[in-house]
């Protein structure tokens, strides 16, 4: 393989990492509060707002049931508005972020709901305010599960980021499509796949290790 190609692969890998990192960060920051809201706003819960809960749930479901590739195309005007372009790495971050939010929010909701209800009752009995319960009890106790949720989100994001390559999004997927497929260079395709596998493995192992460190239940 020529040095030029290796350079291309290196740049594509960095692009993918940048897309995953930025979309993951923004998506998680927005998805986390939405997930907490979903888990705590049912009838009789900490912030009871069952109607808003239902509406937010509907929007989340709608976003999650839209195939990613269609979502990418459907929000092009919005992407252009934000980034001034609809192709390239920068543009790809927008649909990746939009897809991450509902995905992560649902995982957060599940993680929060797993927290023992007795702990909420104990905190209420101590005179905790609802925000104190969220920060000191729910988020703290769900930390191992939240770490795994973030890991799963990042792994999915790596897959999605390869998909945006199909519509000119940049990164490893883009490289695989243009060189591996369109120019029929199977060696490039192979390297792209191997790099993706390694990335996913690294993220998963790091996430598992971190979650295990946070988990004080099973020792």
């Amino acid at each position, binding site marked *: 393989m020529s040095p030029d190609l290796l350079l291309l692969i290196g740049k594509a890998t960095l692009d993918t990492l940048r897309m995953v990192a930025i979309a993951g960060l923004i998506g998680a920051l927005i998805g986390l509060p939405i997930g907490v809201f979903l888990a705590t706003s049912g009838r009789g819960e900490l912030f009871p707002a069952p109607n808003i809960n239902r509406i937010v749930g509907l929007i989340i479901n709608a976003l999650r049931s839209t195939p990613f590739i269609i979502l990418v195309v459907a929000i092009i005007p919005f992407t252009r508005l934000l980034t001034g372009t609809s192709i390239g790495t920068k543009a790809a971050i927008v649909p990746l972020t939009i897809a991450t939010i509902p995905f992560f929010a649902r995982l957060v909701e599940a993680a929060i709901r797993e927290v023992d209800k*007795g702990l909420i009752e104990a905190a209420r009995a101590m005179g905790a305010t609802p925000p104190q319960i969220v920060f000191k009890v729910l988020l*703290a*106790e769900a930390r191992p599960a939240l770490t795994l949720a973030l890991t799963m989100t990042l792994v999915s994001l790596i897959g999605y980021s390869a998909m945006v390559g199909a519509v000119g999004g940049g990164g490893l997927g883009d490289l695989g499509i243009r060189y591996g497929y369109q120019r029929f260079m199977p060696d490039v395709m192979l390297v792209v796949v191997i790099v993706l596998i390694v990335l996913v493995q690294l993220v998963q192992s790091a996430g598992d290790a971190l979650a295990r460190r946070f988990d*004080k239940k099973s020792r």
Partner: protein
Amino acid sequence: MTQSVPHAAPMVTFTGVYKHFAASGSGAAFTALDGIDYSVAKGSITGIIGRSGAGKSTLIRLVNGLEQASSGKVQVDGVDVGALDEAGLRTLRRSIGMIFQHFNLLSTRTVFDNVALPLEIAGVGKADIEKRVRPLLDLVGLADKHSRYPAELSGGQKQRIGIARALATEPKLLLSDEATSALDPETTQSILDLLKTINADLGLTVLLITHEMEVVKAVTSDVAVIDRGRIVESGRTFDVFTRPAHETTRALLSGLPGSKLPETLARSLKPAPEAGDRAIVRITFFGATAERPLVSQLISTVGTEVNIMAGTIDEIGGEPYGSLVVAYAATPETSGRAERFFTENGLVTEVLGYVA
């Protein structure tokens, strides 16, 4: 209510309290509390005992406002709980500690940080938290475990941490929700001893709910028996135990060791004597009579034919208590001597029946 002596005012008062639960998806509507009038004396250890579903969990949760009464009034140290807004409730809750059957410790916090949690919630500074938590861990005997996690502790140790946590904000009232039900008998005893110590040393009022008569017997000074949302019997623990009036109380008491006749004896009991039968009599000793050598006197008074069938000596609410089941010839002569002896010595007796 007017009270001439301030310290005699109750810590908790329930006045005509009802709690109804509306029908929900899973269950029909039902009445959990059906007119509760009861007071918990300051400085007492008061037990509320009942079977599961009797309403005791609901009752204890009304005290710190985790549940709201449908009607009636709950007062804690003169404060009407139902009239408080959320902020007022939070202030009240910081003056009431609570411990739970399943401990409810945060698994991701160390022992120290678990005990510190109520203080953090109350906005206490780091240095003061340090000063407050250390002695509490000493008090419950777990100072050496301060940087362990709950998963590394035994059930009894977890409940000790629960108690330390409940005491962190220096409450005036401690609520105990089946706190020993998940523990083995030995650990239960040590936790109950700790509650007694706290009550005596800190002057803390303890209100506990349980379904175990053993627990009530071991620590409480006062008891209320709850059945189907009503308090069917209440009073000083010693009085309720030695003279149970309601059938629910009797049923709950029948599980206690020493309160039952041996099975074979119970089966052969007859309500009326025939010639040659022996009378089976239960003698209950309490107060001063528990400490006098009455058995030997009884034998010398009645004759040699007194037989001991069952017996127990125990302490209820800190008072000595004894129960002795004896058998003697059911002849008018012997019975007469025995009854005279019982009356002269002020003993409470009950003829249980006759056996051949």
